[in-house]
């Protein structure tokens, strides 16, 4: 298993995201045990402390919960927390990129909002047409 060592993303974040992806893909179901820090260290060829940091992030976000002496388990609402978080993060990032590009091209805020409204309208029309 390979991580991107050159990525600007810290390794422990990549570990957390890998577990999140496994949960989204339902390879870990709710109340199921996920890999221990030592299994992750072996799997990804990294220091166990780094792997533990990735797990800790997910516990803090209440995606995983800890059972003393037993390990880490997927919280029942874990998957929905991940989906919610990704929606927010991805959309916010795309909005930021959109605004930056608009500024570079001297598009005003009103023009930009109109553009978004137009696109949204197109989508609605397509949906309506599809429904007929």
């Amino acid at each position: 298993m390979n991580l991107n060592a050159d990525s600007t993303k810290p390794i422990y974040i990549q570990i957390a995201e890998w577990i999140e992806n496994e949960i989204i893909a339902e390879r870990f179901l709710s109340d199921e045990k996920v890999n221990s820090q030592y299994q992750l260290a072996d799997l990804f060829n990294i220091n166990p402390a780094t792997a533990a940091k990735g797990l800790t992030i997910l516990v803090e976000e209440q995606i995983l919960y800890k059972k003393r002496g037993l390990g880490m388990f997927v919280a029942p609402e874990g998957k929905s927390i991940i989906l919610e978080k990704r929606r927010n993060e991805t959309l916010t990032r795309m909005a930021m990129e959109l605004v930056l590009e608009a500024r570079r091209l001297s598009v005003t805020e009103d023009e930009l909002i109109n553009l978004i409204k137009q696109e949204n309208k197109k989508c609605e029309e397509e949906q309506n047409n599809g429904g007929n």
Partner: protein
Amino acid sequence: MVVIDCQNLQKKYKGMAALNGITFQLEDHKITGLIGRNGAGKTTLLKILAGFIRENSGEVRVFSNKPFNNLRVSANSILVDDQMSFPDSLTLADILEAAPSFYKRWDAGLAASLFDYFRLNPKQLHFKLSKGAKATFNMIFGLATRCELTMFDEPTNGMDEAVRSDFYRALLKEYIAYPRSILISSHHLAEMEHLLEDILLIHKGKVVLHQSLEEVKEYAVALQGQTDIVEKLTAEKDVLHIKQLDSHRKYAVIKKEDSLGVEGVTIQTVSATDVCMFMTSERKGGIDDVFK
């Protein structure tokens, strides 16, 4: 538990300071990278910790004992380097057979498996080994001792790429199965940083940084952009490294802080290797300064 405790450790060779006030503590069951340039004092420090040589002043404790001439430290620690010496009359097989009487946690099974895997010749004499084979054998010996404190001084010198990556993998596997305190010095931080929990960076006989690897990776940021903007942003800051990219753009590395976002300047991460290099560099512009 603290495994190593150094307070203001000093060592001089013919009046030249090799260690010039080293102070740090190492907690148990961590893999720490001992990083520094040539002549920083890495080997001297490791030899003092192993009890091979004596400090001139300051305090050093390994397992709460003074390491020099100390049996408890000798029995529970090992220093693997290219100067390891074994009796000239013993074959490699003889050495492995004798090892358990010196190291009570010796793992003969591991030693034998690694010995086979790396295709060493049991009838070979240690002093006749090639550089690469010697490094491989010494590494096997060091891992198999399962010493509570296992130290490696430039262990991959002489090893080819494949053996290096096998060595780092074996080290990690062993550490996961039998946690111990590992201190490993290397010029090649990038090739082993995935294994490390902490970094101990020394320069001119002093500790410059002792932090977790993740902290070192986030220690600095690089600003790249128009010369005047970069200069303005870094005016009052401690600049670790600076480079003129072309006629109007500059690259500067400073300690990480928030709210640096300015238009016309991109902010980049700085790798642990670069942080260590910039922090131990004599000139802020590096080699390019020489050619100005």
